[in-house]
């Protein structure tokens, strides 16, 4: 394999963006849709070829400098920089710091190429049906292409600065797509919120990168993560520098992780993701379920050897992840909007991956947590995209986001029903669906690290099964909505159904992929074995119990849910209001920052600073008015002044002489 394929994988989506962005207005919808789908389809095929070659051939890659790099050396999968061109170089006294743009091929980037292009392709296809007749159809495809380009650039980044560049670009693509219906005030507000919250998080990431690069004088991931690379640097320079009780490296890593917290919607920076559901549903499936929101997980995975040097930073990740997972799962049980349930479920699942990374240690099952996290990233992308696309089909059919407008839909929308059920079973972790395998591996890793986190996360897994089946029953069973008589819901057109069926099929079988053979923290293959007695059966029992409970409560319309909610009304209300995080943020941003700081500064500027300047002018003006009387033009007055002056001068002279 040479560099043609990597270049094409990046070039096709950006070319599509430019073509559709610049000339889209003059194109028909059909033309734009076909162009977008074909472009993404080609990219997908190319990515498959790259990933297949990398994983399953024992050949080698020809990099841009003409070097032949074997994919596997001594049974270890290699990290290969296909190309790495200088984009910007900064000169310092202690050497230059270059920003490169390149293409790094390694197990996780190859896996991400597959995930991104697959989901992106199905979303492109699905949107052809979902967005049909929508104004700005071409713009939608242009933005999807821009997003795909940015996300692909992010995962193949050879260095952390390239990752930051594309990190910002996915942020802006997300902004544009959330705000796609820009006439709606709610969409505009949601897109703004998403951008600003993630920007705030990126500030942390930027400072982290600043600190890291100050010490290591490199951005390159391979240099940063290789043994004896930064370790040595930090041991010589960094260990002496302790800031507020933590080493500088810990600070840098935690700050970089802050960026990941923003993108991956970890607490307390999760508030943008539920609102981001204002965007069109295919966008939610692509960006806010499968790809962009896992960027934070990917970031930690990418720099994992560095995080491993500072276990404190990994413990921080574990803590944040565990709290977020529980919080989001609890909130998901009380939401009415089906997309928000899925959004909170996404937050919770990503937090699962974070915890799994946070507990990964080479000495515990040979870094199982890392592999499991990536495995779950893969399976989650598939079944969560499936669930979101299913939700899109439902919304398309009933024209509402709330489950109160649904109920009993299983008869009307069989394809959606069955595929949604598969998605629910997968996320609940029922054998043999894909979620079971990845979740089992993650839980094994957590139990291996500490029983406390293992039990905690098993409980979260139980909640997951509960709220997903609550959603499933409320949509497809419960009570039939009377409105169906006027407007019978039906399954979506083939462009929308086909992705559902394929993703459902993938969700059924993806668990049997020997993932450990392909993706591990150090590139050495790892044999997956399921710990049936210790982890799998207990967690299956918990999931089954949760599903049973959901079945009892929600299969048919009854008053049980209200009774349960009435046991702790305070808890239910608080969870329904997402524990008031939005209100707290509103208070801080509007009341304190906006009204308190910004307005005060603006007032200070106008009245104090500018007032001082105006005062100088006024004083000058007043003074000149006051003394202009002397210049009266009257000869007598001048003579008097002359005389007085002469006398005064004479007096002074006389005094001086005497």
């Amino acid at each position: 394999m040479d560099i043609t394929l990597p270049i094409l994988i990046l070039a096709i989506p950006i070319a599509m963006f430019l073509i559709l962005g610049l000339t889209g207005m003059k194109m028909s919808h059909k033309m734009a849709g076909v162009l977008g789908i074909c472009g993404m389809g080609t990219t997908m095929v190319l990515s498959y070829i790259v990933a297949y070659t990398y994983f399953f051939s024992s050949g080698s890659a020809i990099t841009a400098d003409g070097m032949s790099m074997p994919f596997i050396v001594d049974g270890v999968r290699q990290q290969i920089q296909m190309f790495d061109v200088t984009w910007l170089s900064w000169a310092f006294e202690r050497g230059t710091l270059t920003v490169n743009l390149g293409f790094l091929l390694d197990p996780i980037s190859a896996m991400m190429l597959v995930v991104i292009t697959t989901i992106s392709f199905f979303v492109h296809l699905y949107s052809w049906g979902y967005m049909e007749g929508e104004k700005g159809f071409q713009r939608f495809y242009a933005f999807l292409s821009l997003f795909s380009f940015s996300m692909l650039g992010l995962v193949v980044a050879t260095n952390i600065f390239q990752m930051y560049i594309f990190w910002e670009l996915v942020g802006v693509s997300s902004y544009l797509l959330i705000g796609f219906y820009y006439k709606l005030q709610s969409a505009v507000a949601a897109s703004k919120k998403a951008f600003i919250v993630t920007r705030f998080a990126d500030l942390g990431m930027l400072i982290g990168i600043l600190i890291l690069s100050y010490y290591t004088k490199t951005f390159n991931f391979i240099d940063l993560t290789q043994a004896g690379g930064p370790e040595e640097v930090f041991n010589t320079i960094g260990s002496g520098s302790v800031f507020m009780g933590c080493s500088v490296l810990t600070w840098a890593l935690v700050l970089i992780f802050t960026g990941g917290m923003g993108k991956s919607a970890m607490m307390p920076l999760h508030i943008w993701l539920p609102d981001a559901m204002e965007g069109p549903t295919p966008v939610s499936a692509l960006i806010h379920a499968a790809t962009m929101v896992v960027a934070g997980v990917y970031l930690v995975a990418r720099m994992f050897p560095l995080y491993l040097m500072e276990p404190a930073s990994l413990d921080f990740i574990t803590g944040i992840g565990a709290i977020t997972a529980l919080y989001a799962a609890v909130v998901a049980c009380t939401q009415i909007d089906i997309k928000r349930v899925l959004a909170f479920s996404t937050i919770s699942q990503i937090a699962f991956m974070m915890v799994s990374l946070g507990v990964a240690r080479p000495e515990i099952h040979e870094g199982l947590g890392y592999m499991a996290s990536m495995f779950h990233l893969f399976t989650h992308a598939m079944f969560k995209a499936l669930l979101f696309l299913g939700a899109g089909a439902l919304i398309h059919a009933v024209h509402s986001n709330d489950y109160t407008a649904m109920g009993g839909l299983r008869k009307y929308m069989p394809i959606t029903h069955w595929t949604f059920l598969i998605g629910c079973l997968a996320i609940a972790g029922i054998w043999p669906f894909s979620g079971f395998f990845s979740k089992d591996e993650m839980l094994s890793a957590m139990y291996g690290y500490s029983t406390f986190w293992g039990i905690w996360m098993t409980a979260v897994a139980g909640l997951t099964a509960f709220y997903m089946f609550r959603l499933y029953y409320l949509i497809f069973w419960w009570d039939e909505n009377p409105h169906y008589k006027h407007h019978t819901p039906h399954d979506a057109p083939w462009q929308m159904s086909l992705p559902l069926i394929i993703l459902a099929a993938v969700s059924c079988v993806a668990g049997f992929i020997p993932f450990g053979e392909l993706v591990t923290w150090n590139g050495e293959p790892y044999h997956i074995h399921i710990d049936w007695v210790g982890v799998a059966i207990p967690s299956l029992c918990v999931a089954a119990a949760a599903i049973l409970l959901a079945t009892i409560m929600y299969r048919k319309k009854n008053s049980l849910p209200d009774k349960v909610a009435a046991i702790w009304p305070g808890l239910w209300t608080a969870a329904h209001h997402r524990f008031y995080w939005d209100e707290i943020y509103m208070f801080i941003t509007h009341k304190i920052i906006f009204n308190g700081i910004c307005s005060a500064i603006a007032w200070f500027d106008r009245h104090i600073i500018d007032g001082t300047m105006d005062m100088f002018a006024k004083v000058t003006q007043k003074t000149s008015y006051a003394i202009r009387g002397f210049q009266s033009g009257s000869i007598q007055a001048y003579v008097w002044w002359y005389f007085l002056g002469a006398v005064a001068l004479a007096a002074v002279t006389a005094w001086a002489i005497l």
Partner: protein
Amino acid sequence: MILSNILIWFVIIPMLMLAGLAVCRKMNQIRAVMVVLSTALLVLAGYVCVSFLELRAAGVQDEMLFQGHWTWYAPLNIKLSVGVDGISVLMLMLSAIIVFAGTFASWKIDPLPRNFFLWFALLSMGVFGFFITIDIFTMFMFYEVALIPMYLLIGVWGTGRKEYSAMKLTLMLMGGSAFLMLGLLGIYWHSGPGADGAAHTWNILEIARNNSISTGWQYFLFPMTFVGFGVLGAMFPFHTWSPDGHACAPTAVSMLHAGVLMKLGGYGCFRIAIYLLPQAANDLAWIFIVLTGISIVYGAFSACVQTDLKYINAYSSVSHCGMVLFAILMLNTTAMTGAILQMLSHGLMTALFFALIGMIYGRTHTRDIRKMGGLMQIMPYLGVCYMIAGFASLGLPGLSGFVAEMTIFFGSFEHADMFHRVFVIAATCSIVITAVYILRVVGKLLLGKVQDEHHRQLTDATWWERLSTVTLIVCITAIGCFPNWINETIQQSFIPIMKNLTAAI
């Protein structure tokens, strides 16, 4: 022969503009003169840029290329000395682009189009003259030439409280000039002998080579020159001319003023204050780091609550230009390179902003964001351009702002002491605040519902407006996507300045 020097044509062409305009009577003739000659300026700047890079590539090591010296007042040894390094070449390029775009942006200026363009041409002559000269007296003279037309341009063609604003702007900048004059005279009297045997010299290169200004005098002259130029660079607390001035100025004047004239401040700061007074720069930089650091955050916070489009941009300029001066004061190559990049980037993007604001104002007759909304539906072209300008401003990769800001941050972070770290981190916070006010404006102005039903009849951009904006957007994207050649040109031009600075520590 003076005309054989290529740089002098940067002054000759605006003079030709003046002459041409003086004989024009009809609007079309005026436009023809302006278009032809501003295009000529653009071509000339492009040519100079290419020949400069070729000479450098050929290994010419002189600090300033295309030099020429002509005495015009012998008793005080005042000369018209010209010469450019990589930074001035880029500044000339920037000015030419903005004059070109500004010409098209004021296609329908009213009333008195001829007089408007006369002053406009005079202003651009001052700007170009400033960037090509290396004689500080002549430099100062061109600086004044650029300032005075501003008074009339705002006072006559402005809007709102134009007389007040014009007066304020002129007086404050003149006040700055007074400091500057003192500083320059002081530098002259301590400059040491010139190459031609005179007792003193105004020539920047010779003064830098002599390096004979005593530390005591440097301590006195550095604040004079830095504040003198800093006023024009909108440094806190001398920035208040900027919001009023910009708000009242006509479109092309705002473009030229924010785009180029404010850059004169930053350019002067490093070319004179830092280069010629290196000892004081090393010792006193901290005072101005505090002030410019305040500028950055303060300007950004102020912009968050403004309701007038031009005020938002003026405060945003305070923040961004604060970044320029802040980076210059970091006194290392990378940060200062970032400062120049930020000048270019801010120049282009603010010019674009002001052009667009002018176009929107020309249609809606209001600049109050509370009275507008949903303009994206009505004028999608202008809306998209505004968004691009906004993204450039908040530092989106691929556009020029990102490159400049990152270069500044990574350069500034090289100082490891607590004082610098605190201010650098405060400066990085501006990327979030910028995002807040940019998205606030975009959300209110362009997106959402149409606020005023009368706006539905408005039309989208005309061809001259498109030309003006496309020129700027292409440049912004070009810098953003391929920054390294500019970066290296600038870095290389900083070598002599850095040598002076490190020698002075």
